[in-house]
């Protein structure tokens, strides 16, 4: 056990836990931020994606001890009112089915857009290609990223 100070969505938290504890469980079970999802714990589905600084990371594979002073952003902090262009596009294009994978998809997409405001299909496929969606919402995910980037039609006719 050790004490850590984490900055999550701009707020500072003191957490006492093993440095081995994955960030995912710190967020979900210690800080009550359940928007970050547990899908596999193996780094293979992307449901647990958060930002460490500007980078998208799999929180299930990120040890608490490795976070350091980097700021953490979760879906709850992306825009609490759902006003991020991605969140708006996601709602408009009705991307979600069960919705479970979607916060991870959005966080991955947000990191992409921050780096590359006008991604191509290939850029999107590359950035989000390791995020699983069992419900098969992929076409709308791609469309919504484009829409959020101000590209293409806003609504599927």
């Amino acid at each position, binding site marked *: 056990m050790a004490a850590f100070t984490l900055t999550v969505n701009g707020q500072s938290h003191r957490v006492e836990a093993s440095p081995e504890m994955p960030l995912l469980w710190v967020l979900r079970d210690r800080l009550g931020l359940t928007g970050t999802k*547990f899908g596999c714990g193996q780094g293979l589905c992307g449901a647990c994606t958060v930002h460490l600084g500007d980078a998208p990371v799999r929180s299930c594979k990120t040890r608490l001890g490795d976070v350091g002073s980097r700021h953490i952003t979760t879906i709850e902090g992306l825009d*609490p009112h759902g006003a991020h262009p991605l969140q708006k596009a996601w709602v408009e294009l009705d991307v979600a089915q*069960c919705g479970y994978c979607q916060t991870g998809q959005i966080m991955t997409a947000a990191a992409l857009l921050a780096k590359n405001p006008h991604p191509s299909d290939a850029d999107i496929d590359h950035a989000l290609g390791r*995020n699983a*969606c069992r419900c098969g919402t*992929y*076409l*709308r995910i791609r469309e919504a990223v484009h829409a959020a980037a101000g590209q293409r039609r806003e609504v599927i006719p």
Partner: protein
Amino acid sequence: MTDRRDFLKIAGVAGAGLVLGLRLDAKTRPGAAAAPEFAPNAFLAVRPDGTVRITVPKTEMGQGVRTALPLVVAEEMDLDWAKVEVINANPGPDFKSMQTGGSTSVSSTWGTLRKAGATAREMLKAAAAARWNVDLKSCRTEKGFVLGPGNQKLGYGALVEAAAKLPVPKDPSLKSPRDYRLLGKRTPRFDGPDIVTGKAIFGLDVRRPGQRFAAVLRSTVCTGRPMAWDAGKALEVPGVVDVVKVPTGIAVIATNTWAALKGRERLAADTTWELGSAQDFNSADLETFMREALTGPGEEARKQGDAEKALVAAAKVLEAEYSFPYQAHATVEPMNATVQIRPEGAEMWTGSQSPNKAQATAAAALGLKPEQVKVNVALIGGGFGRRLGTDFSTEAAQVAKAAGGGPIQVVWDREDDFRHDLHHPATLHRLRAGLDASGALTAWAHRIAGPSILHSWVGQKTPSQVLAEANGALDIPYAIPAIRVDYAEVAAPTPLGWWRGIEIVPNVFARECFFDEVAHAVGKDPLQLRLDLLGNQGLVKFGRDEADIRRLKKVLQVAAEKAGWGRKLPAGRGLGLACHAYDGRTYAAEVAEVSVEKGQLRIHKVTCAVDCGFVVNPAGLEAQVEGGIAFGLSALFTQITWEKGHTVQTGYQEFPLLRLGDMPEVETHVVQSAEAPSGIGEPPVPLAIPAVLNAVFAATGKRIRKVPVDLSAI
């Protein structure tokens, strides 16, 4: 086909007599200190402020019922959609069978919900007419208001008390579809905003004051049980508070999920097992047994003419074996349930497709009456049939009991989820076709061999099992003089369950691919041969169901036309198609366009045409078609195999789900229909595999008869 009713009866606890247990006479129970509400039935309540609470009697798992079903009520009631609030029903006397599966959520509630909404609308109108002292006929409703003569207008909220005092009409008039303002239009998912902000609460997100988390150490073999264990090292893990025995294994209880998982890892090293009868089970043996069963005795699912005789008389006989593996549901949210036991009863929070059964089985495990267990249905992070099972919710009740009451959330990890899924079983298929000298199809024989889901589910062999396992094969829609479809059960010790598309997926894969083989063997275009043999058939009875072959023919024609069937394609590209009348209710056809280059299969596009009756929410329909196709395509490359009684696959690394870059373009065409809505969640799934594999043949001349697809063969 016919299994569906049995499935609904058997998989749920109740509901055999009632229309899925939906009652129009039951009222919502007012909460404590509730403001007066107008709630003429269990599905809706109007509040004085004009907001309306609609209670959804089905489980949301991504298929959009929390949008589609309230839309039906809102339409009949003429509500302002912006003032609708949606809550999930709790199983109980008002909701006796909330079973969600079989693509029946809209079709089974459609009549009841329309009537529920119409009842409320008529009563509100009557209340306004009485207040104004005008003729009822001079009043109408619109967007949450009653409008009367002379521009009089009253919001529903203002009529709550008066309407509540009126008698409930028995036969309120239903709106004509011509007057629909909400139904048939695109409405985005109700939960969209909560999902994208992380506020949506799935089962795993439930947090109760003082909640603990548990991971259960189970045998990797389904029949295995712990013999001896030493909890010492597990208890040393910071955060672990208890280790308790439950019927399925040993539960490690902790203050957070990670500690529970860590503790379980330690415990596993210090546990010995009795593995039980399944420890020798493996896929290679099963395949041998299934192959033997392809030629042994079988139970008849459909007999038309004498297929064996016709095969003997045929000028030419084609024969092929098709193979489909065990599959996993692989929902992204692993199984979980949270249980709290109090002196007066218990409360459970879980994503269940069978809330009533979850209630009954938890009650039995806790020695309580079902009504003493309150089940709160959480959002489901993927169901696909897996959450029809109540193994995980019952286990959570057992853990809470053993650990002194909870609240405890039992969390499965990804490996638990793969190992202890209720897998969809493997099957082998032997197909034979008889051709006469002119190349006409005179006989069709389809033998299916494999473990029975229904048998596993009920715990014993049932008479209708053969119809269930042959669903999709026995209802081959083509007019062939002699048809024989039969099934030979092969025992397997693993617990089985339905997945999205049920037995129809493997059966239609074998049927539609082999039919393609026949077409090529006689030098006919696969579309043309299908159209020829759908012929001029009208209503055709299969078992207890009836399909309208004209509707099937129409979707096939639309899909083929929209996909440009028959157009010239570059070398290495091909089109393939498949069609099916799903349970005699939903008609669907798909055309896949693929290319194969250097052993790489690319699926460029799938064109789907469906006729599923009236479409409540076109946005939801398209999502279901896209998702259904993705689910089917995913199965091209996945399988569960068994060695020494355990699954070889334990995670997504060995069970590669379709990813973004593999997703083809999907084009959906709805064939308009005046029929009542029939269901769309599953029908697109079974066609994806045969459409693609038939396209692979068109592109390469290589016939693939086995899933998962071995690309080195092309």
